[in-house]
């Protein structure tokens, strides 16, 4: 299913913050986790994650440090800060409201051929 770009963009920040709340991680693995969590439905252009991570870092929600990959390559890791955890909490509360509202009305909405969902 094609998911609307705006929706993908809106969910990107809470998704990344939530994944980092599981523990420190790096770009490639974060994208793999997104794909895993959404059964491959949420597809990002891989490269777009990095400007997002850097923005989150600049806002103080994540911090980064250089480490090594299993094969000894330089790898940049990110971890959630306290401000990031608070931000994630704010996102969670917002999404819960949106989710509850949408579920409520969409279960009542009538489909194109007159059927109920």
């Amino acid at each position, binding site marked *: 299913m094609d998911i609307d770009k705006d929706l993908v963009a809106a969910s990107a920040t809470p998704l990344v913050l939530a994944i980092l709340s599981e523990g420190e991680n*790096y*770009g*490639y693995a974060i994208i793999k986790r997104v794909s895993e969590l959404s059964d491959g439905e949420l597809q990002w*252009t*891989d*490269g*777009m994650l*990095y*400007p997002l991570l*850097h*923005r989150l870092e*600049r806002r103080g929600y994540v911090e980064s440090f250089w480490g090594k*990959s299993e094969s000894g*390559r*330089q*790898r*940049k890791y990110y971890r959630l800060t306290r401000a990031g955890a608070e931000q994630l909490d704010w996102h969670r509360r917002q999404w819960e409201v949106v989710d509850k509202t949408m579920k409520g009305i969409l279960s009542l909405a009538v489909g194109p051929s007159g059927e109920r969902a």
Partner: protein
Amino acid sequence: MDKLSLEERIGQWRDYLQKRPVVRTADIDELEDHLRSQIEVLRQAGLDEDEAFLVAVKRLGDLDAISREFTIKYSERLWKQQVVISGSATALLSSYRDTRLAVGLVIASALAIKIPVLFGFHLSLAGLLTLLFICPISVSLCFRFWLFSLD
């Protein structure tokens, strides 16, 4: 033409990115780690070096678009610098003092209307001109304070 090795291809890819001043070397190192991780996975899935490189580059996305995103990232910083620089004319005034000044000027403009009336004078041309001068200043200071309070 000789077939390029994977390392040569990655080298060319780096060179292409390095031409963009907004993408820093550390950012390229980070993207390269991503590219290599993806290539490794694709190689394990049975693709040869060339195929794996091409698919990995494709998945990483349009480098121009990514560069643009990096531009947005830095232009945000530039934008902030601009705000600070344009504010440097009033750098001696903290935003707190700006507010007090703005409030003071609003009161002054109110008084400029009220005082002459209290004393039985009608608004003179000079009074009107003073008002016309003071009001925009207080409005602009209020606006500036509002801008500062946003960030």
